[in-house]
C-alpha cells in the first residue's frame, strides 16, 4: 500500500475488513505520458472480487487512459500491475483478455448483421471437422445467457435487431465468455435510456455475485451510488480520492472532481458589460442586445424540448457531459441533423435550416468539435481552407472577400510566415492551434451573426486558447452572438454570460456566468 500523507486519499485497507477477500488486480503508482504530456500520475487502484469499483472524473481526467492501461491497449510508463499478487504486464489487449481482464468500451465492437452467438464467439468459434459447429455455438451461447439470467436474448437473434441495451449486454456477455474475472466498463449506460438501464443493473448484480471484479466508469452519480462499493476520483491525471461509496457524499464527490485554479487566464469582459454584483434573482451579465438566435421547443431524435436564446454580444455556454446533447443542438441549429420539432428564429425571423448551406445563408457559423474530420480539408492550402465557405456559398463575392483573409489570420495571431505562405502551405502541416485559427478565419470572413463554437479549445496550446478567448470577446463586442459548447468547466464559467446545462438531451437548468463548477457538474450529473 502506498505510503502517503495526502489527506485526500483514504485507500480502503482490505485487512481492516475481515470479510474482504484478496485483491485480484492492483495498480501501483501507474503513470502515463503522451508526446511528453503527462496524462496520468502515480495512480493506485485495487480491485476486489465481487465488488464494483467506480472510476469517476471530468472529461479528460484520465479515466479512459487508465482503463486502456488495464485493458492492455496502453502500457504504463511508470508503476506496476499485479494480478493475484503477481506482477504482470499486458503488451497487447489479447494478453489482458487471456489473463481474464475484459473490457467493454463505449463504442460497440459488434457486427450488427451477425447473430448473438456469432458475435460472442467471434474468431474462436467451436469447430467440427474444420467447419463451424453451429449447434455447439448456439448451445454454448444459450448456456452462457441462461447462466446470467438473460432470458430476453436468444443466441440466433441478429445483433442489429436488438435494442441498444441488449447490445450492450451482448458486449458484456462476450467479455464473460472469456472467463473474465475482471471486467471494466466505460460508461456502459451512456447510450441507454433510463428504463433500459435496469437490464444492465441486473447483469452487473449477477456478475458481482459470481465474484467478478468490476471497474465501472460513469458520469452519472445516481448509477455510481446504486452500483459502486468503492469510488476512485481522478482529476487532471491525478489520483484524488479512493473511498467506500457509502462514505463519500455526492457533494464531496463533485467537489473533488472539479475545482482548479485558472484565475487570470481568461480575458475580462469589456467594462460596460461586466455585471454589477450578482444580485439574487437578477440574471447577471445580461447585455442589451437583440435576440439573435432563439429556439423554442426544438427537438429531434437526439435532443428534446430545447428553449434557448442568444443575444447580440452575449456568450451562452452549453455545458454537460459527453453525449448529453450539446453537439446535437449545434448540429440542429446548423442543419447537419435538423430539428424536427419546435421553432427556430434568427434575428426574429422564423427560419428552417435543413442543410449547412442554408445555415450559412442565414449567417450562422459552426466551428465543429472535430477539426480534422469535420473542419478542414487537410491536403489543401491555408488559403483554400480559409475561403472554403466563401467559395462554396458566395462564389460571386469570394474573390473580393477573400482579400480580407490575411488580415483575419493576422488578427488571430497566426505567425506571419504562415500568413505569407498561406497559398502554398497545406493545413495538415500546421499545429493544432493554427489549424483551429484557420477554421475560425474561414467563418469570420463570412461575418456571421451567430457563431457556434463546439469545443473550440480542444487539443490546442495555451497561446492558441488565449487567442480563441480574445476572439470571443472581440466578436461579442461587435455584436455577434456566441454559443459556446465546452467540456472545460473553467472556460465555461469564465467566458459565458449564461450557462445552460444539458442532461440526457434536455436542458437540466440554467446558471449565470461565474457560477461554481460544482453547481454545473451537479446539474450535469443529476446530483442536484
Amino acid at each position, binding site marked *: 500500500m502506498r505510503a502517503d500523507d495526502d489527506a485526500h486519499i483514504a485507500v480502503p485497507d482490505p485487512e481492516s475488513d475481515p470479510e474482504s477477500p484478496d485483491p485480484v488486480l492492483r495498480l501501483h503508482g501507474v503513470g502515463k505520458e503522451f508526446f511528453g504530456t503527462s496524462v496520468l500520475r502515480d495512480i493506485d487502484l485495487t480491485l476486489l472480487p465481487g465488488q464494483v469499483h467506480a472510476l469517476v472524473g471530468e472529461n479528460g481526467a484520465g479515466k479512459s487512459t487508465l482503463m486502456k492501461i488495464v485493458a492492455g491497449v496502453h502500457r504504463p510508463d511508470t508503476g506496476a500491475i499485479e494480478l493475484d499478487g503477481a506482477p504482470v504486464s499486458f503488451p497487447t489487449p489479447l494478453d489482458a483478455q487471456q489473463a481474464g481482464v475484459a473490457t467493454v468500451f463505449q463504442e460497440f465492437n459488434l457486427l450488427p448483421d451477425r447473430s448473438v452467438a456469432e458475435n460472442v464467439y467471434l474468431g474462436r468459434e467451436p469447430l467440427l471437422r474444420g467447419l463451424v459447429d453451429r449447434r455447439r455455438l448456439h448451445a454454448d451461447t444459450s448456456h452462457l445467457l441462461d447462466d446470467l439470467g438473460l432470458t430476453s436474448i436468444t443466441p440466433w437473434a441478429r445483433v442489429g435487431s436488438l435494442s441498444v441495451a441488449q447490445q450492450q449486454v451482448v458486449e458484456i456477455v462476450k467479455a464473460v465468455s472469456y472467463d473474465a474475472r475482471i471486467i471494466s466498463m466505460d460508461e456502459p449506460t451512456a447510450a441507454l435510456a433510463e428504463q433500459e438501464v435496469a437490464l444492465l443493473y441486473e447483469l452487473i448484480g449477477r456478475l458481482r455475485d459470481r465474484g467478478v471484479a468490476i471497474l465501472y466508469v460513469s458520469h452519472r452519480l445516481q448509477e455510481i451510488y446504486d452500483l459502486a462499493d468503492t469510488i476512485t476520483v481522478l482529476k487532471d491525471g491525478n489520483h484524488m480520492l479512493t473511498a467506500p461509496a457509502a462514505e463519500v457524499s455526492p457533494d464531496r464527490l463533485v467537489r473533488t472532481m472539479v475545482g482548479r485554479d485558472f484565475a487570470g487566464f481568461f480575458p475580462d469582459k469589456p467594462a460596460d458589460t461586466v455585471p454589477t454584483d450578482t444580485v439574487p434573482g437578477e440574471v447577471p451579465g445580461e447585455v442589451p442586445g437583440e435576440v439573435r438566435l432563439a429556439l423554442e421547443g426544438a427537438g429531434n431524435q437526439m435532443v428534446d424540448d430545447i428553449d434557448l436564446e442568444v443575444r447580440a454580444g452575449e456568450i451562452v455556454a452549453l455545458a454537460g457531459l459527453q453525449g448529453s446533447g450539446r453537439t446535437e443542438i449545434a448540429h440542429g441549429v446548423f442543419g447537419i441533423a435538423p430539428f424536427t420539432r419546435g421553432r427556430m428564429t434568427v434575428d426574429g425571423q422564423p427560419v428552417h435550416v435543413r442543410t449547412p448551406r442554408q445555415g450559412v445563408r442565414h449567417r450562422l457559423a459552426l466551428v465543429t468539435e472535430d477539426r480534422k474530420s469535420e473542419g478542414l480539408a*487537410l491536403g489543401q492550402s491555408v488559403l483554400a481552407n480559409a475561403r*472554403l465557405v466563401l467559395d462554396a456559398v458566395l462564389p460571386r463575392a469570394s474573390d473580393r472577400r477573400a482579400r480580407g483573409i490575411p488580415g483575419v489570420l493576422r488578427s488571430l495571431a497566426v505567425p506571419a510566415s504562415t500568413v505569407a505562405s498561406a497559398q502554398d502551405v497545406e493545413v495538415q502541416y500546421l499545429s493544432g492551434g493554427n489549424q483551429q485559427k484557420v477554421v475560425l478565419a474561414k467563418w469570420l470572413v463570412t461575418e456571421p451573426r451567430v457563431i457556434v463554437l463546439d469545443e473550440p479549445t480542444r487539443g490546442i496550446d495555451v497561446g492558441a486558447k488565449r487567442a480563441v478567448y480574445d476572439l470571443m470577446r472581440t466578436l461579442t463586442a461587435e455584436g455577434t452572438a456566441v454559443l459556446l459548447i465546452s467540456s472545460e468547466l473553467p472556460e465555461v464559467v469564465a467566458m459565458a454570460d449564461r450557462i445552460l446545462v444539458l442532461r440526457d438531451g434536455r436542458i437540466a437548468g440554467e446558471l449565470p456566468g461565474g457560477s461554481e463548477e460544482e453547481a454545473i457538474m451537479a446539474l450535469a450529473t443529476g446530483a442536484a
Partner: protein
Amino acid sequence: MTLTAETSRSTARQWRERLLSGGSWTVLALLVVVLVVIVVINPSFAEPVSLMAFAKKAAPLVVLAVGQYFVIVSGEFDLSVGSLVGAQVVIAARLMDGDEALTWPVLGLMLVFGLLVGLVNGLVTTLLRVPSFITTLGMMLVLFGAIRLWTGGAPTGALSESFRVLGRKGFPDVPGQFQVPYALLVALVVVGFAVLLMRRPFGRSLVAAGDNAVATAYSGASVWWLRTRAFLLSSFLATVAAVLIGGFAGVTAQVGQGLEFMAITAVVLGGVALGGGRGTVVAAMVGALALEALFTLFNQLALPSTIRPAVQGVIIIVAVAYAARRRRT
C-alpha cells in the same frame, strides 16, 4: 565560392525533391525523358510535322483526361467515358449517314445525350449513394450493350465531311504542308478552360470535396451538386473527344474501347490522387501526353500494339503505389 556551391547544392536538392515528389514535375520529367528517347531512336520525330501529328493523335486523350480529372479530384471515377465515346460516334454516323445538312442537328443531339449520361452518372452516385465505380461501370455496360443492340453489332452509316474536319484537318489546310491540327487547338482550349475553372470557387470547392467531403459540406457546399457537375463535365468532354476521334479514325465497332482506362491511367500518371483532393489539371494533361508518348515509343521500337493494355496496367499500379509510398514518408 562555398556559398554558391552551397546554394546550388540546395537548389539541386530542391529539384531532386520536386522531380521525385510524384506530382506535376515528376510526370513532366517522364514526358521529357520519353520524348528524348524517341528522338534519339528516330530523329525525324523532332520535326514540326511529326510533332503536330503526335499532338493530333494525343488530343482526344488529353480532352478525356481533363474530363476524368474533374471526377477523380472530386473523389469519384468515371468508367463510362470509353463507351460514351463509342456510342456517340456510332449514333452520329447512323443518324447523319454522311448527310452534311444533318451535321449540326446531330452535334446538338450528341451534346444533349452526353449531358444526360453525365447527369444520370452524377445523380445516381450522389443521391442514390451508389459508389461511382459501380454507377459508371453499369453505365459503361448499358451504353455498350444498347449500341450493339441498336446496330446489330456492326455500325452503319457514315460521318459527314464537315463533322470530321475537327479531328482530321488543321490550319492552314494545304495537303502535305505543315499545319496546326484543329484537334490540338480544341485540346488547348479545353485545358485552358479547365485551368480557369479550377481557379474558380467551383474548382476549389470540388478539390476540397474530394479531400474532405464532410468538412466541405459543413462549410455550406452542396457536395452532391459539385460532384454531379464533375460528371457532367466528364461526359461533355467525352462528347468532345468523340467528335475528335470520329473525325480522326472514322466509325468502327471498336471505337472508344478501353479509353476510360487510358484516361484514368493518364490522370493517375499525372500524380492526381485516386480518392480525390490532390493534383492539378495540367498534371493530368501532361500525364495524357506522357502515356501517348510512351505508346509512340513502343511503335518506334516495333513492339506489338497488343502490349499496350499490359503496360497500362503496370503503369497504373506503379503510379498509385508510388503515390502511396510518397504519402507515407
